[in-house]
């Protein structure tokens, strides 16, 4: 229903899938906002959160060991925003601009969102401690 209402706003010069994601994302955000559980979703928060640097060798080993199925299970455990960012980028092959548009963030912060999502994913894969232990600066 919502999609039908929004359809008249669709700009035909732009990607339909990107527009569809944006509508879906906005709808989800609206729902979350209504439930008052939308927190630290603004880019300012993201900017200030330091990310632990992984140990390259351990990260490499972790990636090598994990199967697609394990990754899918881990994806299920992620927050909505992180999962959405990963899906848009690695499944729908959307550009950073399109992702920024869909998530309602500035383009410069898409990388941060994606990197945070990756960290969450690694955490869900059960290797946070190991990965955060080493690393370079």
């Amino acid at each position, binding site marked *: 229903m919502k999609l039908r209402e929004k359809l008249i706003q669709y700009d035909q010069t732009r990607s339909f899938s990107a527009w569809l994601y944006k509508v879906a994302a906005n709808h989800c955000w609206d729902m979350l906002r209504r439930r008052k559980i939308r927190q630290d979703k603004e880019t300012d928060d993201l900017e200030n959160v330091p990310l632990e640097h992984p140990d390259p060798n351990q*990260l490499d080993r972790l990636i090598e060991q994990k199967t*697609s199925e394990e990754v899918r299970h881990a994806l299920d455990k992620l927050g909505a925003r992180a999962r959405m960012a990963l899906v848009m980028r690695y*499944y729908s092959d959307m550009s950073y601009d399109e992702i920024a548009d869909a998530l309602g963030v500035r*383009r410069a912060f898409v990388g941060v969102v994606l*990197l945070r999502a*990756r960290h969450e994913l690694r955490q869900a894969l059960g290797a946070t401690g190991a990965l955060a232990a080493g690393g*370079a600066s």
Partner: protein
Amino acid sequence: MREIDHSLPGDTLEHLDEMTCMLYVERQLDRTRGQEISQHVQGCSQCRTLLRAMERESRLLTRAMLEEEEPLPSRLAQFQDRARRSMQWIWGVALGLAATGVYALYTSYVEPWQSQLDQAGFGGSNLLSLLIFQGAFWKGWQSVITLLEVLAILTLAGFGLAFFRRRSRRGSAFALVLAGFCVIAALVPPAASASVTRKGNFVEVKEDEHIKGDVFLFGERVRVNGTVDGDVFVFSTDATVSGHVTGDVIAFAQSLHVSGEIDGNIRSFNNNLTITGTVTRNLLIFDETLNLDSAGKVGGSVTSFTKSLNLDGNVGRDLLLFGEHIGIAGSVGGGIQARGRTLSISSGAQVHGPISFTGDEPPEVSSQARLASPVDFHRAEHKPRYTEGSVYVWQVIWAAAFILFGLVLFNLMPGFCREAVANAERYGASGGLGVLVLFGIPIAAIIACVTVVGLFIGVSTLFIWFECLHFAQIVVGTLVGQWLLGRTSHVWPLIGRMAVGIVVVRICTNIPFAGPWIKFFVIVWGFGAIALAVYRRLEPSSGAAAVVPSQPLMPPLPPTTTVGGAQLA
């Protein structure tokens, strides 16, 4: 795409941070930054490892999500949509091709073999009657059953079954098949009931003996000196038939010497066969050496697959010979078709028909030999078969025949086929079980054949095993199709994937040198998957097991143990 403005700490980079690596991997940095990073990672193994890890992480993510719900890349998805719309055309072309294939198979293989076998004296007006109704299938299954014939027959049978299944209640088609087997099984025992079976180290039909009915003889040494009014089946190391047999002699022996009189045919699998007596009808021989002595006489024709063949005696009709060394010194009433390395025709030879020889060396023909016409010699060409255009035409026909076979199987037993394809993804279990079953079943079947009571079961098992060789390729083909076009649980899309996969598998199995090995692994793999599906069907349900309290005599397995490819809960 707009470049992101993400600066590096400076020119003298110690190590790259993760964000920079990710942006570099995703091609989000401008050219200058990209070059700086490229230069840096060339000399920094730690950053190189990090870059590689992040790249692999991206690929893993993409793969994980693409595998989940059959999401095809958009190009493939569009293609699939277009294909779905024009499905009727695709199936029309596929079925037309398959029908052409079946016709070509019949005219190129079945008909010539049929006429050849007719000529060889197996009688019968068509192949089906030869195989089944005249008993040749049961006692003479060694008569040539080519793979193509079997495929053609099964395809027809499958269509027949599908037709019945559609028009009758579920399971009635299988009941029909079962009833058919039962009828055939019921027809076999009367023949066997009138038979005589003898076993021992030394087994003999004495000179003054006259046996009415078939005789089965098992022994280290077998002698048939008396008269047998029926067929003689010999399983022996050293066998001699010096008496009179009014029927056929069917022999599995290391050495067989026939010095008596056989009114019927000889069909044999031996190391050595020597004939000094008389065979009124024909020979069908799979031997290492065959000697037809100058005193020996064959009234009909000789079809022989032997390494070395010496023909000094008389043959009433044609010769069809496949062997390395072929020597003719006797009299041949018909023509000769031979294929081998060498052919020599000695001075005493008389051949009343045309002679055609395909071999490595020109035939040696004595000037004193009396021939109806000169030998028509064709040098066997060993050029790579890939240079011949007809090979590719046949490959297309083969692929069509496989697809047709798969189509029939998927329609007849969709559930079982789906299970088999799913099992193929259990690589370890399928591979292991495949090796076991591929080699184990023929051995068990041959043992069953040797024990006369199990002949029917043994031959049927071999037949099923033979068909599973092809089914295995179809199973693996379907899996490959699913890899390419995504998973599905619906029958027709699955058949579409099967068709695509079979084409891929057929291409792979025809790669020079590696092809045969690929084919072997495909068969082992598919065979294992089928065996797993059969095992799952046959294994008792857990409910039934719970009723039996004294079942586990061994300690319970740990929960992660794998049994028959299935992980215990």
